[in-house]
């Protein structure tokens, strides 16, 4: 219980600090802290694979992408002296809508404090699959992902393909042509078959 409160409170505080920090690099660092604490929460839920994947993919790749964007934009800290209350009406409404959306997801029976569940026994969620034989998180995921839900899996591969090709198409331009050596052609040069002009340039010590 104490670990849950530690992780969730640090996650909430650092997610607020993401938008409140003056330096954009600080806000990316708080963002990384949010991911670390969320990964800790996932470990508490018993999803150890997803916790490690959060660290590898989210922190190791997505937060790094954010850092690259911050580096690219070249924001000087002194330029940010905005009035915070300017965005409060619209931002507050959108934030409130996101908060209310959470109640669509949470089933009211799982929250002990709400008036529908005023009993004194704490409601625990029983994972019946765990009681029969204990599989690791990886095994349960792998058992279903490649057989029952294989279409979603192949769709995800298509999404990754689109991302790869899209990134290359958008950032490559003509000036990124590289001069390469053709090793086989260089090895196949025979002195007898060279022309006079080539021989002169080749015998030049420079």
């Amino acid at each position, binding site marked *: 219980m104490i670990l849950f409160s530690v992780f969730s409170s640090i996650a909430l505080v650092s997610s607020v600090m993401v938008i409140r920090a003056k330096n954009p690099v600080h806000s990316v660092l708080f963002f990384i802290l949010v991911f670390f604490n969320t990964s800790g929460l996932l470990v508490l839920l018993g999803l150890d694979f997803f916790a490690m994947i959060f660290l590898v993919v989210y922190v190791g*790749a997505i937060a790094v992408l954010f850092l690259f964007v911050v580096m690219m934009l070249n924001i000087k800290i002194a330029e940010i002296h905005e009035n915070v209350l300017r965005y409060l009406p619209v931002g507050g409404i959108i934030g409130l809508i996101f908060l209310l959306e959470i109640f669509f997801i949470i089933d009211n029976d799982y929250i002990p404090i709400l008036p529908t569940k005023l009993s004194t026994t704490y409601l625990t969620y029983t994972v019946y699959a765990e009681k029969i034989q204990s599989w690791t998180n990886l095994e349960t995921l792998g058992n279903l992902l*490649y*057989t029952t839900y294989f279409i979603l899996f192949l769709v995800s591969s298509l999404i990754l*393909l689109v991302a790869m090709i899209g990134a290359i198409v958008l950032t490559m331009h003509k000036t*990124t042509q590289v001069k390469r050596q053709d090793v086989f052609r260089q090895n196949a040069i025979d002195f007898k078959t060279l022309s006079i002009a080539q021989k002169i340039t080749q015998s030049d010590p420079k």
Partner: protein
Amino acid sequence: MEFAPICVYLVISLLLSLILIGVSFLFASSSSLAYPEKLLAYECGFDPLDDAKSRFDTRFYLISILFIIFDLEVTFLFPWAVSLNKIGLFGFWSMIVFLLILTIGFIYEWKKGALDWE
């Protein structure tokens, strides 16, 4: 639980980094800390002419995006490798199709020379 060693490891690494930062704060004399001339950029003794940031090369971003893509491919390989005896031939071939689709992207990237640097 079995994650207790990870907790111990986290606490020790946190302590170590706090000690490393804190000792330098303790033992530095306050007069030699940051005064404005010390914090300026060094340009061979001249006054700094321009901002230190040069133009950002987009190739870094492309490398990190391609790293994400192949990292996710490896992430999908992990549960498959563990549960291969249960999913049988169908699971095997679905992963092979996944790898083939990503190999198409890999061939495209190789032929285009997306990771070549001058």
